[in-house]
């Protein structure tokens, strides 16, 4: 799945899960479809709204990378 694409339907979800050895029942497939598409839409909106984000914790010189206080 490309980053800006949403899953089309429950079958699309089922195929993607099956490719990784997972399964889900019909009820769950519908819920997962809503969850993952909602999350992708929300994150894409965040990306559009914030163009000045730092590089993430991997390079963030804050509490995670810091040895201060240890």
């Amino acid at each position, binding site marked *: *799945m490309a980053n800006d694409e949403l899953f089309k339907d429950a079958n699309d*979800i089922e195929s993607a899960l099956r490719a990784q*050895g*997972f399964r*889900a029942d019909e009820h769950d497939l519908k819920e997962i479809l809503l969850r993952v598409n909602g999350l992708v839409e929300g994150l894409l909106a*965040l990306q559009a709204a*914030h163009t000045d*984000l730092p590089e993430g914790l991997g390079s963030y010189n804050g*509490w*995670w990378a810091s040895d201060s206080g240890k």
Partner: protein
Amino acid sequence: MTLASEATFKAAAIQALEMREGQYSPSDLVENYLSRIQAHNSSIRAFINLDEAGARARATQLSAELENGVVRSRLHGTVFAVKDQLRLSNLPTTGGSATKVDTSTLPVATVVRRLEDAGAILVGTLNTHEFHNGPTRDFPFGRPRNPWNLAHSTGGSSSGSAASVSAGLCSFSVGGDTGGSIRAPAANCGVVGLKPTWSRVSRAGVIPLLASMDCIGPLTRSVEDAEAFLEICSGADPADRTAARNHYVAPGSDLQDLQGMTIGVIEELIAPSMSSAEAISAAKEAIGVLESMGARVVSRSIPLLTETRYVMPALVSSEAVNYHADSLRTQYDLFDRNTRCSMLVGALIPSNLVKLADRVRASLALQVTAALSDVDALVGPTAGRSAPPIVEFEPYTDADDIRKRLYGVGIASGQHTRPFSFAGVPALTVPCGLDASQLPLGLQIIGKHFGDSTVLSIGRAFEKALGRTFIPTGYS
């Protein structure tokens, strides 16, 4: 002379003091709590498993030590229970799940070992949202209920940890907090809850949710007890290479006032869109107490605060699906529906968006750090409202519905606690009042990295100035 039953709701440190004075013994205290668990657990479902024989044997040993003048710590002889997230030597670890959990690769939890070495007595394991990833819909060990009103939730995920302390079923408990899982239920149940600075307390032996944010901490009836926990449990641990090396040492004396201190009120958390009128009112009254003790109160902003709504599920699901992948493939039907749907999202979300979530998290952490830069602590309501009523889950209907109910912003969203988990800073909740329904509300006090002592000192001063105890009716 005090009977152990009269000490039920006393702080653990007070109980330990009374036992040192010979007013009652650790065995008396264990029997008191075992009988109370027997009486109340069927309604509040705080405990999953008990080790009655082990607790009695341990109490006998610790009682004898006291008689011989041996005092291991300021929690010697007190009784504790542990969120079912930690591997123990004497009880199974379920993670609050009906699945068969393999904890064979985990060591016995360092936190439990340290508490036992300090003379605290483990009585059992406590109910939790499944694998700390709520909201669980069907609890395999019974739905935890709030002692203040059984029709209301405890919050989670350290549900049993909060309910057990609130209802007087143990001296204190241990919980886990990744995005608010100690603080939210503690606030809902009227007890103290501490998420220490990330890495301050070893996570060895803990089933993880999001390792870079998971914290283990105490739920107690006093701030002093939370501090005693930190003194005992902090410090380097060969079994957890991420554990901070410095050991927490409590300040020698209490703050007499807050003169010279600056407290920042997080303006987003006291906005009507984020917190109920009662939660805002209680927080403002609490802030007034801090001000009356001499603190200078200023306003501070964390503009990205609400964005945790997409960041948290992206990070948690992508990590949790990896940890539980084998179980999801082989025991799918035994998982709670919320847990398995939530985790399987992690198998589907594009990795670039997970990286984006991580960048937003880092940005938010920087905003928290900036807001703390020129104040001693930040404060705000721990939750947007008191404990919500327990309602039957209604399936999500469409994109709008899931946007509002699962990824929504506002009073019931849980965004009051997550930003401080993102930043890894210490955060304490202290009960600050009751709403019109007689349900507790909490004040959250947030400090700088490794500023746990400042947070605890302010909490103790506040608790003392407020001068109230929070005991639900029907349990005393």
